């Protein structure tokens, strides 16, 4: 096994690599978002959406997608298979071509999310070490055809979403739920689950926090520019139990939990979280509850849409997507003949 020192040396080498070619995002239909979807034919694809919600481009996917990660500079995105997938596709959103196919190393599968680090030179992915059930963060060299660079422990079981904070700190939602490909998506450790939020710098865990209730799986996270991380929770208690639905944490501070009154309406399940573009409000979506809560720190507004799940920052506010094809942006709504999959990814433009 590779030592951390060797791994960092390899990472360092990649960080020094040549400048990237950057035919930016603007050239291609001006997408502002990415979202995976199922089409009426039953086929799956990754779409680029404009700020107004129109389709900017479409790239077919071999199987159901989940989330995507957008390269910060190149018109390039990684589409992740729905867990427990073993592939991720690096897509040239310009030509709709598949540039690379990432295969999970032997004994690993992807958990559905990833994030770019170091100005787009490194891609980090959440993975399962199948034999032990330990979470892993895999690193891939985006400057060298996405060669596998190495991996580090994620700090828990079942890492789902990973996001990059300033200074290349990674925040990882270790959902706490062990799954095994042999039993599909079945949860194997409900009695002993202990989710956490872990922060990694240079591949090492610098902080790890747990919430008071271990039955709340921390699955989706969103970071604000000031480092405040919002966590969307999924309750493994009864769906009607009033348990917190989201939590906040910043490095070095004590986490706070919120939204217990929302739990029965949400049926205990948050599908996605996003800060508004101006950072003033947090949106948490509840596909089972068919609604989203938009919270400004004191008051909560409710948005009703069936199968609402995707949310991303847009302008000063938010954009939403749902399983019936709706795209709701700051400027209005559009409907497409697809079922939008769980996540809407903002390109930050």
């Amino acid at each position, binding site marked *: 096994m590779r030592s951390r020192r060797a791994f960092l040396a390899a990472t360092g080498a990649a960080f020094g690599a040549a400048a990237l070619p950057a035919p930016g995002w603007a050239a291609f239909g001006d997408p502002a978002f990415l979202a995976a979807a199922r089409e009426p034919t039953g086929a799956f694809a990754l779409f680029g959406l404009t700020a107004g919600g129109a389709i900017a481009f479409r790239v077919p996917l071999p199987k159901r997608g989940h989330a995507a990660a957008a390269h910060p500079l190149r018109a390039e995105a990684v589409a992740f298979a729905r867990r427990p997938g073993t592939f991720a596709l690096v897509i040239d959103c310009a030509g709709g071509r598949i540039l690379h196919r990432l295969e999970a190393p032997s004994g690993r599968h992807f958990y559905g999310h990833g994030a770019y680090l170091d100005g787009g030179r490194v891609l980090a992915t959440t993975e399962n070490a199948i034999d032990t059930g330990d979470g892993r963060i895999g690193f891939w060299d985006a400057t060298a055809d996405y060669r596998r660079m190495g991996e580090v422990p994620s700090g828990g079981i079942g890492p789902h979403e990973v996001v990059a904070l300033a200074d290349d700190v990674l925040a990882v939602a270790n959902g706490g739920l062990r799954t095994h490909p042999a039993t599909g998506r079945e949860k194997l450790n409900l009695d002993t689950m202990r989710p956490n939020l872990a922060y990694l710098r240079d591949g090492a865990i610098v902080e790890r926090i747990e919430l008071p209730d271990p039955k709340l799986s921390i699955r*989706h996270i969103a970071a604000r520019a000031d480092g405040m991380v919002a966590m969307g929770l999924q309750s493994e208690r009864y769906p009607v139990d009033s348990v917190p639905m989201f939590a906040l944490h910043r490095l070095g501070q004590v986490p706070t939990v919120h939204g217990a009154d929302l739990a029965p309406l949400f049926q205990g399940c948050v599908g996605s979280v996003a800060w508004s573009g101006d950072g003033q409000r947090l949106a948490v979506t509840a596909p089972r509850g068919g609604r989203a809560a938009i919270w400004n720190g004191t008051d909560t507004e409710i948005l009703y849409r069936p199968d609402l799940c995707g949310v991303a920052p847009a302008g000063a506010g938010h954009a939403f997507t749902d*399983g019936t094809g709706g795209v709701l942006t700051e400027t209005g709504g559009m409907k497409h003949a697809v*079922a939008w999959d769980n996540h809407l990814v903002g390109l930050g433009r």
Partner: protein
Amino acid sequence: MLSGLEATADQRLGGPLGTFDRPRPARAELHRADLSLPMVRAALVSLRDQAAALVDAPRTDAALARAIEQAGAIDDPALAGVADPASRIRIEALRTSVRDAHDTAAEEIGATLGVPAGFNSADGD
């Protein structure tokens, strides 16, 4: 169409039904004109036409036909019977049928249009 069924179940019927301990007959739509139940029936008939115009959805059509028949069999135009346990049960049954029609339509028509309900909500992330 789905929101029409939801409104019929939750507002036109749910409003006057209130709770068992606290029925709200005065909340029935147009109850002074004795048009509450006719409104429910008219809504169901027009929603059935609408469903038929969308796609071929036999199960939805049957579910709506059942609800319309039930509405026709209740002789209480102002829905005043919500306050009486004996007649209330038939109005509750009608609401259940409207909700069933809603769920059937969501599934059947959604599937035919290629957007099954619950793409995200059905099976987690």
